[in-house]
């Protein structure tokens, strides 16, 4: 198992209801989440807005520290590891962010953005590695000299992917990475991700509220609702026979392509 999560709880202080004096009340966002991700799996995490998907993802890559429970990454308990203790293994779990404009430093060139994390982990031959990463995401090598604002949305998201895969991680978390893109770039980025997963033997957790995307990409699905797992299982089973009422609700919300529909 790459990831084992056991009864994970996470609460954050609610600054909007903070009294003038004293601590802010905490709102519980994850309420006992447990699941495993086997090596090589592509896990889809779905759920409505505010269900805690991003919070769960950020806890998994330890951008957030859980309140209780356990996260085991490849057998190591990383739940409460300090930043210093985590640093050595950070290369192994990476993240691709939703908004590629915000996740790429606007004042660094693409080459520097991709090479930065590799340099931190003492990798050598950076130029060649940057070129290789650009090749893998299907962008010309000359893009290394560009700034993020000189790229289109889809190209930026590819840079986000290149930065993550360049580190040769074992696991990648992708949080709503196509929701900001138009339909054709969405399809391209998804195809790319599918190829990379197959070629590099990656384990992937793919957060989305779009079930049709999940269905295409993922072999397992986990349904999150109000910070709890309401259902999980192989994609085919879940789509064929959803168990939880909430899952059925989500499935019903997918617009089905209607073959009889004519253009007017």
């Amino acid at each position, binding site marked *: 198992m790459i990831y084992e999560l056991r009864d994970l709880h996470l609460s954050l202080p609610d600054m909007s209801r903070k009294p003038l004096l004293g601590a802010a009340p905490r709102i519980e966002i994850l309420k006992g989440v447990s699941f495993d991700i086997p090596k090589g799996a592509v896990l889809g995490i779905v759920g409505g807005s505010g269900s805690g998907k991003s919070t769960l993802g950020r806890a998994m890559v330890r951008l957030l520290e859980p309140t209780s429970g356990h996260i085991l990454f490849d057998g190591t308990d990383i739940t409460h590891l300090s930043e210093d203790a985590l640093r*050595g293994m950070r290369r192994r779990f990476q993240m691709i962010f939703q908004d590629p404009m915000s996740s790429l430093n*606007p*004042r660094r060139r693409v080459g520097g953005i991709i090479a930065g994390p590799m340099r*931190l982990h003492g990798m050598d031959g950076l130029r060649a590695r940057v070129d290789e990463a650009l090749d893998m995401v299907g962008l*010309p090598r000359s893009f290394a000299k560009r*700034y993020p604002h000189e790229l289109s949305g889809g190209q930026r998201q590819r840079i986000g992917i290149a930065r993550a895969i360049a580190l040769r991680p074992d696991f990648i978390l992708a949080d709503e990475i196509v929701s900001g893109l138009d339909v054709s770039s969405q399809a391209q980025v998804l195809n790319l991700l599918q190829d990379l997963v197959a070629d590099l033997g990656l384990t992937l957790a793919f957060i989305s509220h779009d079930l049709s995307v999940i269905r295409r990409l993922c072999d397992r699905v986990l349904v999150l609702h109000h910070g709890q797992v309401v259902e999980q299982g192989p994609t085919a089973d879940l789509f064929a026979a959803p168990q939880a009422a909430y899952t059925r609700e989500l499935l019903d919300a997918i617009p089905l392509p209607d073959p009889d529909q004519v253009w007017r």
Partner: protein
Amino acid sequence: MRDARGDVRRPIGLRLWLSGGWLALLTVAALCAPWLAPKDPLMQDLFLGRMPPFWMEGAEPGYLLGTDSLGRDVLSRILYGARLALIVALVAGTLTCVIGATLGLMAGYYRGWTDRVISRFVDIWMAFPPVLFAILLIAVLGPGLVSIIIAIVIIDWTRFARVIRAEAMSQGAMDYVASAQVAGRTRFGTMLTEILPNVLPTIIALLTLEMGIAVIVEAILSFVNLSISTDSPTWGGMIAEGRTSVHQAWWVLVFPLITLFLTVLSFSQLGEGLKDRFDPVLR
């Protein structure tokens, strides 16, 4: 997939040329004043008092911009005055910037108690009326170059701290900071390599503005005689003297005033010009 967006080169703007050019000229004037100045700026000659500039009738050869009531050469005094103006601009501006921006950057990026301590300190500091503060300080320290510089730093570092704190805070919320953490960069490293380059344009704009302000403050303080000892030439001091004899010898007032004006304007435009030229993010 291939387009020309990466290849656009921006021309050096007129703004940068003019402001940079004037400041470069002034720097040369300040550095080479002993060789450039046609006369000794302190040499008085009562027989040559209030001589007009060269193109007017009755001008004395060798005194290009005329003389003041004591017969001192206006051009030479402006050139020597540039030394003090630029030293104050450079030293006071840089110190203000380094102190204010460092505290602002730390408060805005580290948040938490670092921010609470620094922000409270800034608030308390700003509760004092700044000009009173400066005059009090100079009264205690005595007039002089060092007092002027300290007064400027003491009054203005809070502006840097506040603006840079807000900027660092909004940059700190961006995903590229989270991304640096996922990559394993230290907090301090992230501040230096990710946040700082993004607040640098603001820092430079504030810095050049501050240099202009420092020149004005120095001029005001010499105008009210709180600056350097009265005989070393300063623009503010010249303006003060020129004001008293503006009807008999306008040039004693006007030339230092123009120089001061152009210098302050250039400093404020330099920041904008540098940003146009060097900031990769076109806005």
